[in-house]
């Protein structure tokens, strides 16, 4: 993606749970599988993960429960101390931070949204949202002003004095989001933020979330177990299984070229046409004739044209500049699910 340094970079990160993880890690033979580690009485929450998150990017970590996705994100913010490897956040090795530095980092740079909201039941919405500001010692007045601002941003105006239990699930999560944004973090962690919500509300919150992201343009690590949600939101998706990352790529690539059998199973029931874009299908050195397609158009949106057209190669433009051409047959294969 960009050439700048990644915001979060982790190399060969391990998180092992058990009686004495450090000692186990040292003596553990190379290439031990998840099951073998479990047989030894340990759980590999995160298993040799190397991944980077770039500025302004939304990385979605997808996996089923127990796959280690929540553990991994907790390693990024050092809610969990890792057992092996290194994690750097904006160039700083977070394992080397003192407690005070760590607290400062969280107070100024990080925000996190939780699956079950994690709201403090004894505080009003306003006090919940202002909580991180209060912790870093801001005075009451600025605290209140900033909190009201974010509450307005998430559309909860007029509910400031309510208590969490008086709100619906979707509203409570809006509070959670507002709280995580109060300190204007650069890095935003969202741990299955919409999983506890009804399907309809979930869709609404996803839209809301995309709207916020467009406005704020933060670096985001988003956790979900819902593949559709991942496809809908992600710039890149990392699919995890048994603590390890199976594949990390853009939605198009994952759908078109699943790296493992496990990933392929997820993509099976997906309507690929809604995921794959013209830009991905374009072959750089090929050329075509006639009306060009925009790189951001999905195959689904081109369906009628693909069926009716007779051209073999269709030119693809990005922002008005040609980036090559795509084969109509390849696009039709995506649309109709044929073998490519």
């Amino acid at each position, binding site marked *: 993606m960009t050439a700048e340094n990644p915001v979060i970079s982790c190399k060969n990160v391990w998180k092992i749970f058990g009686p004495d993880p450090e000692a186990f890690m040292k003596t553990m033979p190379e290439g031990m599988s998840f099951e073998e580690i479990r047989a030894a009485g340990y759980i590999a929450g995160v298993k040799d993960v190397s991944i980077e998150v770039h500025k302004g990017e939304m990385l979605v970590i997808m996996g089923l429960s127990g796959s280690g996705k929540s553990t991994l994100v907790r390693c990024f913010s050092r809610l969990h101390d890792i057992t092996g490897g290194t994690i750097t956040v904006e160039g700083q090795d977070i394992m080397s931070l003192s407690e005070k530095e760590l607290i400062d980092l*969280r107070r100024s740079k990080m*925000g996190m949204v939780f699956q079950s909201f994690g709201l*403090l039941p*004894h*505080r009003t919405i306003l006090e919940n949202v202002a909580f991180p500001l209060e*912790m870093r010692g801001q005075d009451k007045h600025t605290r209140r002003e900033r909190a009201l601002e974010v509450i307005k941003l998430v559309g909860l105006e007029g509910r400031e004095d309510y*208590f969490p239990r*008086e709100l619906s699930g979707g509203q409570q999560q809006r509070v959670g989001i507002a709280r995580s944004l109060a300190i204007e973090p650069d890095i935003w962690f969202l741990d299955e933020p919409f999983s506890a919500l009804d399907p309809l509300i979930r869709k609404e919150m996803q839209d809301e979330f995309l709207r916020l992201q467009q406005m704020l343009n933060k670096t985001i690590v988003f956790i979900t177990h819902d593949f559709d949600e991942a496809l809908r939101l992600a710039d890149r998706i990392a699919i995890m299984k048994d603590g390890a990352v199976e594949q990390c790529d853009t939605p198009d690539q994952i759908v078109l070229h699943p790296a493992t059998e496990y990933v392929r199973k997820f993509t099976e029931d997906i309507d690929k046409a809604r995921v794959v874009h013209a830009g991905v299908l374009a072959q750089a050195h090929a050329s075509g004739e006639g009306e060009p397609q925009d790189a951001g158009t999905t195959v689904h949106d081109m369906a009628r044209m693909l069926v009716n057209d007779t051209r073999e190669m269709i030119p693809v433009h990005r922002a008005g500049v040609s980036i090559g051409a795509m084969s109509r047959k390849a696009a039709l294969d995506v649309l109709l699910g044929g073998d490519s």
Partner: protein
Amino acid sequence: MTVASTTLPTSLRSFSNAQIALACVAVALCLTIVQYLGLLPTWLHRLPEAIIPNFAAVLDAVFNFVKDDLGLLAFTRFLTEGLEWLLDFSANIFFGKRRFPNIGPVPWTAVAATAAVIGYYLGGWRLALLGGGTMVWTALIGQWEIAMQTMSVLAIAAPLAFVIGLSLGIAAWKYAWVDRVIKPVLSVLQTLPFFTYLLPAVIFFKVGPTAGAVATTIYAIPPMILMTTLGLKKVSPEVVEAGKMSGCTKAQMLRHVYIPSARTEILVGVNQVIMLSLAMVVLTAFIGMPGLGAKLLAMMGSFKLGRSFEIGVTIVLLAVMLDRMSKAWVIKLPEHFERDTPIWQKHSMLLLGLGLFIGFTLLSLVVPFLAEVGRGQDFSQGKELDNLIKAFLNIEWVKATTGFLRAFLNVQVLIPFRNFMLSIPTPAFILLVAAFALALAGRREALYALVFFSLVALSGWWDRAIITLYSVISAVSLAALIGLPIGILASRSNKWSERVLLVCDTAQTFPSFVYLIPAIMLFGITDVAVIFSILVFAMVPLTRYTIEGLRNVPEEMTEAADMSGATRLQKLWSVQLPIALPTMAVGFNQAIMFAFFMVIIAAFIGTQDLGQELQRTLAGTDLGKNFVLGICVSLMALTFDLTIMKWAADKKRMLGLQ
């Protein structure tokens, strides 16, 4: 024995627990039969005096060393002064003891009005009525001063227990080693008879309110510790992580995240602290603490049933009021006000309370009756009630019933049972208990039973211990005979379950002391009265847990039974009871613990057990003997506690209920 002990470890493994238990019972039976034939040597029947070590003297020496040589007494006497100052302060406020700050006593009308407003704030009109009504009753019946003597100690002891319990609870939650140290101490403390709290309190903290307050505080601490730890452990991990991600320091985490999130459990702890404090503060009458308990003790001692009854009502009202209000506080959640609500409206209750308090205080300056109900102005009907109760007990059929029950239970049931228990040789008895623990729980519990009861035998108080146990077992058995059917019947309908649970809840808040009143009324000073008071006290948890166990059987299971064509009885017998049994066992266990507690109090009626000896030690400074006796009771209670709770936990795990 020597042969057995060398071969035991290897051979034990090849036998099942049940087989070993059976063997123990067989040996015990043989011993008993031989004893009945008159062939058993006396040293096998009871331990000979000569080999009984003098624990009491050793303990005394230890206490004296700690007390005098290590300077503990000087230290506690120093603490006493501070405590005394606090108690004098509250005594001045509550009933006008002439001490600093010399502003009391607060007029009873002002207190009643405040109680009503607090009640209204916490739970509406019903609690307002309960709060105000209790105070009005107490004043008008002429017991204001003694009630306030009791409350003045409670007002110091309960907050003290709260603070200490909360701190220890936090420490136990934070540091594993504190938890490991505290756990066993707590379980011993909870089974230790209250007389054992009293004597050290007297010795170290002077007779009177100070000793009473100390004993009360210590007695009320354990549940506060347990509830605090429980609440802190239950705080959802996401809330904790949210706190950390908000950049909380450790102190901020505790203050802003953990403690507020554990609010419910902590307040339940507060409720228990208040209730235990009240129960104990009444009992401190035994060490000369003036107040409701002392008055009740005196009235019952002189068989003035009318006055006893009135005091009993006051105690019960106070208990119910404190319980309901603190429980209402548990479930009371903060509410938000609409924007721009004026300040006086936000704090309307506070203002109303203050206003009424000041108003009545001023008014009472003019109308003395509103400040204090003087001698001869009260509405006590002690004499009349007394006559009424005695007349009622003299009605032919009432007299015949109680007389019959008394005679029948005594002659046919209790005395034979007691004699039988006493006739069992000591080793046989210990084997029986161990077999019981082995069959129900496991080898570890059996070992505990063996060690604990052997210690009781070595203490030299075996006969008295057996009499204590006899009271407990007969009372709990009778309570089960009555309580279980009530529970089973009540659990059939929602309405009745609720009603009976409410009765149980209310009865459980009564300080144990008041259970003596009906017992003495009905059965006079007899063994039956002892058993009766324990029975009523122990029936409460039995009934309650039976209902809860049966009501909590998952609906699919009863529906499955219905669809399989089970009759009501079949459903009860083969579906509901097996699943409810672990819960019922918890109730059974609590009943036994309650019984061990009550049997000691019943010493007041006149028993021949450990409690009686314990009560006697209170008059002197026999700390060693006091402790030996207390530990005996505690060891017996712990044996049952460990065994039954282990059984219930095993059963629950087997049923997959956890």
